[in-house]
């Protein structure tokens, strides 16, 4: 009798699990095909010299591609550029998005409209965004220079996309394109702050700034942690912004590590003379992933306090 119950129980559990697996199947297939397989493919080609379809069989080169990454000065310049770009973007976009969220959080018709306007660039095509910013920032007839010249602030056009200013221009573009997204996260976070805590603070005589500093911001710790992590990781992978505006130039002044690896698979127009090298591109991508992963782990360790909500 006991044996019969046990078999029946196993059958029910198996049936229930089977249903769960079937429900998971579409996502699992997607995950394996779109994430796991490309990662394995990339890891494999790190050890080969291979120029792509029609260029002969891949040739085993052992650790040579990885050793070459460590000798490649331009790659390490691109790593430094990535940190400058990421740091510049995060340090400006987070306070700005938070500020916008604070002033637009109240549900009014104007605020809804303003939120939509700020969010609009997030859903805009990167190619269009690049073109718009090229028209704004180009040195010879860009709108920004025209305004500054007309206002008498500058006497000759500033080369916004030249080696001196290109990185700043990229950061401005990234902020414009991403601030709406982070603003929405912050609005969601602010709306989660306990009304009781806010009311208690008010009863205790706390002013707006005090409430913000001592109640709202600390209580948003967990969501702030997520927003910061998203902004850091996206800064490491952000190549469309760079690709449409400067393609890493001039003279690699805006070359970021993700774009540097990408061009060995798909030479972009500014580097169309680059010969496809899948093996070396894979090695660059793997080292870049390790760097991005290390930064994320360090950040998660340092930001553990943000999980504590008092």
């Amino acid at each position, binding site marked *: 009798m006991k044996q019969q119950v046990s078999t029946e129980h196993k059958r029910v559990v198996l049936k229930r699990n089977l249903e769960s697996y079937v429900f998971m199947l579409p996502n699992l297939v997607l995950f394996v095909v779109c994430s796991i397989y490309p990662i394995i493919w990339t890891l494999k080609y790190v050890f080969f010299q291979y120029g792509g379809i029609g260029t002969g069989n891949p040739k085993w080169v052992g650790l040579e591609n990885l050793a070459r990454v460590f000798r490649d000065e331009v790659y390490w310049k691109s790593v430094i550029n990535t940190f400058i770009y990421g740091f510049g973007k995060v340090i400006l976009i987070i306070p700005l998005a938070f500020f916008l969220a604070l002033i637009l959080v109240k549900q009014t018709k104007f605020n809804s409209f303003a939120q939509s306007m700020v969010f609009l660039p997030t859903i805009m095509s990167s190619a269009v965004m690049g073109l718009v910013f090229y028209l704004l920032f180009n040195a010879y007839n860009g709108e920004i220079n025209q305004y500054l010249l007309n206002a008498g602030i500058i006497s000759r056009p500033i080369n916004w996309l030249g080696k001196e200013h290109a990185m700043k221009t990229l950061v401005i573009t990234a902020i414009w394109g991403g601030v709406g997204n982070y603003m929405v996260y912050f609005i969601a976070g602010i709306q989660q702050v306990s009304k009781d805590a806010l009311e208690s603070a008010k009863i205790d005589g706390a002013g707006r700034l005090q409430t913000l500093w001592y109640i709202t911001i600390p209580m948003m710790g967990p969501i702030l942690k997520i927003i910061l992590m998203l902004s850091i990781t996206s800064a490491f992978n952000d190549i469309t912004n760079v690709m449409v505006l400067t393609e890493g130039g*001039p*003279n690699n002044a805006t070359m970021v590590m993700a774009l540097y690896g990408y061009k060995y698979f798909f030479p972009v127009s500014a580097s169309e003379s680059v*010969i496809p090298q899948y093996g070396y591109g894979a090695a660059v991508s793997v080292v870049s992933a390790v760097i991005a992963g290390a930064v994320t782990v360090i950040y998660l360790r340092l930001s553990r306090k943000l999980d504590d909500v008092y």
Partner: protein
Amino acid sequence: MKMTRKRRLTALFLTGAMTALFAAGCGGQTTGDPGQADGGQGAVQGTGDNKTVIRIWTKDRHDAKYIQEKVDAYNSSNTDNIAVEYELYTDNFDQAVDLAVQSGELPDILTLNDQVYSQYVNQGQWLDLYEYMDDDMKEYFKEEVYPGINEIDGKLYYIPTCGTTGRLVYNKEIFERVGISEPPKTLAEMVEDARLITTQLSGEGIYGFAQHMKSASSALERSLDLGMERENGVKKGFDFAKGVYDFTGYEEALGYWTQLLAEDVAFPGCESLDIDPLRTQFANGKIGMYISWTHSEPGVYREQFPMDSSKWDVAPIPTSTGVESGKQNIKFTSGYLINAKSPNADKAFQVYKNIFASEDFLVGYYEGGYGVSIIPQIVKKANLNEEIAGKTWLQMQDIDGVLPMTPQEKNVQAVIVEGEDYYKTFESIYYGGADAKETLRDLTDRYNRAYEKGIADGVGEKLVIEQYDPLNA
């Protein structure tokens, strides 16, 4: 919250359907006929009236209308029971060909693309035209046979009909305004003229020189590369006589380029300039001179960015010394490759001969300004339009010639250079202030190391042309 049996079954069915649809989407097509793998699939398909379909792929948009008209005329008049399908692939042509080769779906005919040609020429992918050409055709195109380029081991893989090369494009009005009587012949004169224009006219937004330096390779392939070929007979850094790469001779020219691109001379923002924005500014009379291809500019200023033809002209690219030590290369812009593995290769050749190799087509192509003919008979017969006829240097001249292919041009995978290629390395000199002498020495070493490694790996071959004369290549 228990699911009813019906709901559960529906959910399971939908999940299964989603998975099946996704798997089907990822799976791709299976032909079921392994024999198809090597041939052009389109060639064996028949139309409703059982015509043989010959598919042609092109990457060129600028002549698509002209060619489509010729194809339509052929389709309506041919008695060979052939229907030609002309397909435009302007984006990622190379990748599309790679995938088509792998999947056995390569069309019967393709427009010439240097990289695609070189990549598959040793794999028997292209038809030897000699097998199908009659004596008259061989005689007609005998001047267009270049051993080592389109003729390899006695096999002819394509016939180039048009070519292009670089020239200095200048605004005659701007030159006259500042008192420049003739276009510069040396780079020193070019710097001087450009500086003069910028100094006198920058207040009006007019500058002496511009080049689309956003892509160093695109800009320098049509300018510095060609100037150096005439300057010291070296093509893309390769010395055919010695059989080695040598970039050290570029130092003087790069010094002038650094001056040309300096703030007090160049159009603002050259670092991020593409060719079309440059052309719009030239058409607006804001740029004194730049360097570009002969085949493209007449059409651009006639249709794309209209500019009075009398306001601009072209001249040879200035060099450091002005002494002609070699010819500058003519790059082929028109030619067709036939898929040797197509089951209808014979009919594909027939289409090629009747449409693209006909005198009527070639004359019309040149007269229409779609390309600069390199066939003497066509040049003689064509009535050129005003833009081309009035500008002598838009046509091929004695300074131009077809140069041999460098080891890297023959097979890009034979010279895999560690670090930046020479275009990007030059950028570090004229924009980054790198020491030219040291940088060029290092560049030469890197290219030669890569060249020798390619030979050692069996991917490339040693290339030395005994008694190579750059002036009579």
